[in-house]
């Protein structure tokens, strides 16, 4: 099943499937790339940042960005 990064449940894991073109280069340096395993650790209320675990590092991404990343979370 596909989900936006911003819609993932706590501790849910998945694989990055698609990143909106205009953000792709911007977040590549943070380790967020197609095919990478990702886990959503925390999400702040009121469209706040989403904290994810990717490549053994914790990274927080803004809501607007998390909304543009599609993750395959299995079934």
């Amino acid at each position, binding site marked *: 099943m596909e989900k936006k990064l911003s819609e993932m449940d706590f501790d849910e894991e998945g694989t990055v499937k698609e990143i909106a073109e205009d953000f792709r*280069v*911007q977040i*590549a*340096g*943070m*380790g967020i790339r197609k095919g990478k395993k990702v886990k959503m650790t925390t999400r702040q209320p009121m469209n706040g940042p989403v904290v994810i675990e990717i*490549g*053994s*590092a914790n990274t927080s991404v803004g809501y607007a960005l998390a909304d543009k990343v599609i993750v395959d979370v299995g079934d």
Partner: protein
Amino acid sequence: MKRILLMGNPNVGKSVFFNRLTGVNVITSNYAGTTVDYTKGYMCLEGEDVELVDVPGTFSLEAKDKAEEVAVKMLDEYNDSVVICVLDASKIERGLYLALEIIEKGHPVVIALNMWDDTMVKNIEVDVAKLASILGVPAVSTVAITGEGLKELVSSIGDASSATIEDIIGRVS
């Protein structure tokens, strides 16, 4: 005067290296983005005075904010300088992205795999020699806050070499 740039992701210990190497005391903290502007200092390398620049942390060379803009501008401006690329050894993948971008620009690079003590706590194994041979640049494991590996790092600055992405790709496959 020869110039050396300290570059890397935010919060990997660049400023700790800077303080240790130059004796200048810049503020360090455990927060990403402590350094937003650059600081210059001087150190003696093989009997020669060299300028060391503490560059703000950046994830990539496509600047997203003011601090990153400074970093990218410095790299372009000082295009003949050696770069000490500081990586958090426990988050090596993310650091290598930037390291490869810097290598791609043609700068002579030395890799400092910092927070080496952290890799042991987290049970992460990194083959330093293999990394160095794949990248074609020197790599040293370090713990900046205790000074471990600092001597090796300084002595490898002279061996800093540039590599091409094509060669690196060839060595990986």
